[in-house]
């Protein structure tokens, strides 16, 4: 039986509901970011955040979507623990349907939380090979390490750098890259002549340099997460008499490394980039970055710019169909296929949420990036 009080409450709720719904619809879209904003890898977080901020600005200027994007940030500290805590907050407190994140360990810790809550996670910085199959909700806008090593191996063969010593952090990224090198080097008659795992907190590498000198490798490969650690390693290897070519993956493309004298000659792989391209999306990104930060962008910056842009491109389609912006809807929209207009060109995702990209082998020469070779994968 409906009482008078129940009727009044019900009527009031019915009158208020459209206003509440309308208010919810007017609310900005929450975009989560899980970047390392403190600790040794904060340089990366800073760069990712700048790229996200630039993309949000451009999306608003282009009026790509109806409502503004509000960035909700958590500090991952580049650690799995920080990743799990930050992701839980973004999902439960901020209720972000789409989260940008980086670093292999962080991604692996955050992925189960994101999958449970049906939150899309987009990685633009971690390259551990097992990031390919973490979850349908986990996408990569960066080629993974196996693709980078595929591009590096022909270069090693051509340079006759067949005996490689590997210095790695014993985490999913380091283990994945070491396994990849152990698998691929024998195909060109090469081998991993020594592998040296280091704790991520280590600072003194003189004794490791002595052991590397002892195995007489043709080259030394670093599978290290984080530019700060890499910088210290490169400096101490050179200071301690390791004169062989030093090689790494896309982590090497950092401004702070380019200016390090000991990093002169460092060879690194990474996505192809042409900052002089006239492709409209690329030009807009590069011009925007240069005017804001006074330097050329990096590949990582482009990836996070694209990751943010991808959110807006998907939301735009959902707005057209009138569907709500949820993680599930975003995944469905991406699965409908088609190409996305990114800085760097149009891209499409495979069924695992991976993009395909050209990889280039580059080298620091007097503080500048010199492209040695590039190939399609």
């Amino acid at each position, binding site marked *: 039986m409906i009482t008078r009080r129940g009727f009044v409450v019900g009527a009031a709720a019915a009158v208020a509901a459209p206003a509440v719904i309308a208010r919810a619809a007017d609310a900005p879209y929450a975009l989560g970011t899980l970047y390392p904003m403190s600790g*040794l890898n904060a340089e990366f977080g*800073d760069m990712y955040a700048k790229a996200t901020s630039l993309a949000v600005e451009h999306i608003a200027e282009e009026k790509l979507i109806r409502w503004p994007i509000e960035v909700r940030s958590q500090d991952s500290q580049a650690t799995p623990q920080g990743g799990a805590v930050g992701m839980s907050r973004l999902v439960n407190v901020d209720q972000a349907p789409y989260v940008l994140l980086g670093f292999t360990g962080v991604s692996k810790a955050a992925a189960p939380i994101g999958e449970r809550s049906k939150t899309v996670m987009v990685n633009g910085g971690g390259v551990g090979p097992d990031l390919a199959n973490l979850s349908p909700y986990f996408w990569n806008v960066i080629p993974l390490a196996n693709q980078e090593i595929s591009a590096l191996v022909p270069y090693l063969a051509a340079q006759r750098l067949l005996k490689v010593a590997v210095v790695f952090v014993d985490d999913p990224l380091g283990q994945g890259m070491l396994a990849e090198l152990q698998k691929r080097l024998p195909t060109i008659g090469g081998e991993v002549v020594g592998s040296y795992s280091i704790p991520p907190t280590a600072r003194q590498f003189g*004794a490791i340099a*002595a052991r590397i000198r002892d195995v007489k490798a043709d080259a030394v490969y670093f599978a290290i997460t984080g530019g700060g650690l890499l910088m210290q390693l490169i400096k101490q290897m050179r200071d301690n008499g390791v004169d062989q070519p030093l090689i790494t993956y896309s982590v090497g493309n950092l401004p702070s490394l380019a200016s390090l004298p000991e990093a002169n000659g460092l060879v690194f792989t990474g996505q192809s980039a042409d900052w002089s391209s006239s492709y409209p999306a690329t030009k807009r990104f590069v011009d925007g970055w240069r005017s804001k930060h006074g330097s050329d962008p990096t590949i990582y910056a482009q990836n996070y710019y694209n990751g943010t842009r991808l959110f807006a491109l998907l939301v735009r389609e959902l707005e057209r169909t009138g569907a709500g912006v949820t993680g599930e809807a975003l995944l469905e929209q991406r699965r409908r296929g088609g190409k996305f207009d990114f800085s760097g060109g149009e891209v499409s995702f495979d069924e695992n949420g991976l993009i395909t990209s050209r990889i280039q082998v580059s080298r620091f020469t007097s503080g500048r990036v010199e492209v040695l070779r590039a190939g399609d994968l």
Partner: protein
Amino acid sequence: MLVIQIIIAGLQTGLLYALMGAGFSLIFGATRVFHAAHGATFVVSGYAFVTCLKLGLPLWIGALAAMLFAVAFGLLLNALVYRPIQRDRGSFFTVFVAAFGSVIVVQSAMEFFFGREPQTVGSSMTRSVEVLPHLFVAPIFPIILVIAVISLGAVASFLRWTSVGLSLRALSDSPSLVEAFGLDPKKASNLAFGIGSALAAPPAILIAMTNGINPAAGAHVMLISLASTIVGGIGSLVGAVAGGILLGLAENGAIAVFDTQWSEAAGFVVLFAFIIIRPSGIFGARITR
């Protein structure tokens, strides 16, 4: 030759740890303040040095600035943070939390002013030369050795042979007795912070040159300082030096025997061994209950 090379690397690391540990030990021994911000002093000093060199100033001015900033930071922290807490009878724990907070403030300030990326200065002194077949030594190694011996020798002599040094040692034993003899515990405490903080400058300079420095470096430095102090014996300057060298040798020596990833763990195995077998450390006094 690999073993000799690793011993040299261990000694170089150990001497830097010894200097950091000695500063912390001196401050803690004299004032009983758990100066967790000793790592922040290291960071401030290192950034002062790097900034001077990046401005094109000569090395000696950079070294002087590093020393001045370290001392000033230590004294300011004592005057503005520790003393007010102690005046209000703040607990040991309150001082610890304040010190820990100072580390975070310094880290954030450095990130704000200098960016988050590591800073380093190039120098030919850090490039190793082959002194014997397969034996590489950097010119900076004998410099580290000389600086460590002079700094630690000067502090030890000061504490042993001067009346002010004597009052500093007395302060660690009994603050009330120091007052009874007409000495000023406040001045003695400032002296401990001044000298202890100055000892953070040489390792900050040398690490900025050999490894590079970043805003988050203080936490690791603090951990090493604390470990050296415990291994050497709390309150003992000689003990902190011995503890630092032992930790450096253990870290590097482990690389010759075990997998390279166990190097840092080896240092802490030494620490735990001392905590279990000889909690008073190498030179610490045993307390009978």
